[in-house]
């Protein structure tokens, strides 16, 4: 992830399943390239299916970009835990992290594609959310 461009919006993938999260990240890397800061997290603290706030915070930290971070989530807890993680960020960072209303795999690829072209956080979110438009 060291080759990622600090100008580009970071992408965080949050799934109940670490395999899905990692697999989605693999798709992003292979299809979009390495210009985009990217991190994934999945599973609860005991290694089972689920999500955890600490893991999400760490992923946001890893994918952090001054341009902001777009978070892609799968179901229920992934979304609420992501929102909780955003709430826990320092105030100056909070406004630069958005949870997208988009399918996790497709949304991650599209968000990263948009980000790789240097688009703003708002444009990255809008593009990912086009799937439900």
């Amino acid at each position, binding site marked *: 992830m060291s080759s990622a461009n600090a100008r580009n919006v970071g992408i965080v993938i949050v799934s109940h399943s670490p395999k899905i999260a990692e697999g989605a990240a693999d798709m992003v890397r292979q*299809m*979009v390239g390495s210009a985009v800061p990217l991190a994934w997290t999945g599973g609860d603290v005991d290694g089972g299916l689920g999500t955890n706030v600490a893991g999400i915070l760490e992923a946001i930290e890893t994918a952090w970009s001054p341009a902001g971070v777009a978070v892609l989530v799968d179901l229920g807890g992934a979304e609420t835990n992501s929102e909780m993680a955003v709430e826990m960020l320092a105030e100056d960072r909070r406004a630069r992290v958005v949870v997208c209303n988009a399918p996790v795999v497709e949304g991650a*690829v*599209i968000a990263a*594609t*948009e980000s*790789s*072209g*240097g*688009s703003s956080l708002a444009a990255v979110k809008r*593009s990912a959310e*086009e*799937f439900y438009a």
Partner: protein
Amino acid sequence: MHDAHASRAGETSVPLTASAVLVNKVGLHARPSVKLTQCAKKFVAKIELALAEDGPWTDAKSPVKVMRVKAPQGATLHFRVAGADGEAALAAMLALVHDGFGEV
């Protein structure tokens, strides 16, 4: 075009068009769509594509819209570009399609 760009737009206000046949096996599926939009985003020109000469036109900078075109192998992709770097943009789009997005 806005008035501020009128002097530049004077030369490029007429859109450039060209077409190319999709040669890669799977057509304009996910990966080629990503490559195409990434390439399109490098230019300031407005870039659109269509499966027919008279449209409907799709924004080539939108990965979701480009994937929805579902252009199969053998389809002719029509491009319409307008803007200061339109010529270079059109050449880049055509090169990408001719090369089968690097996956033929």
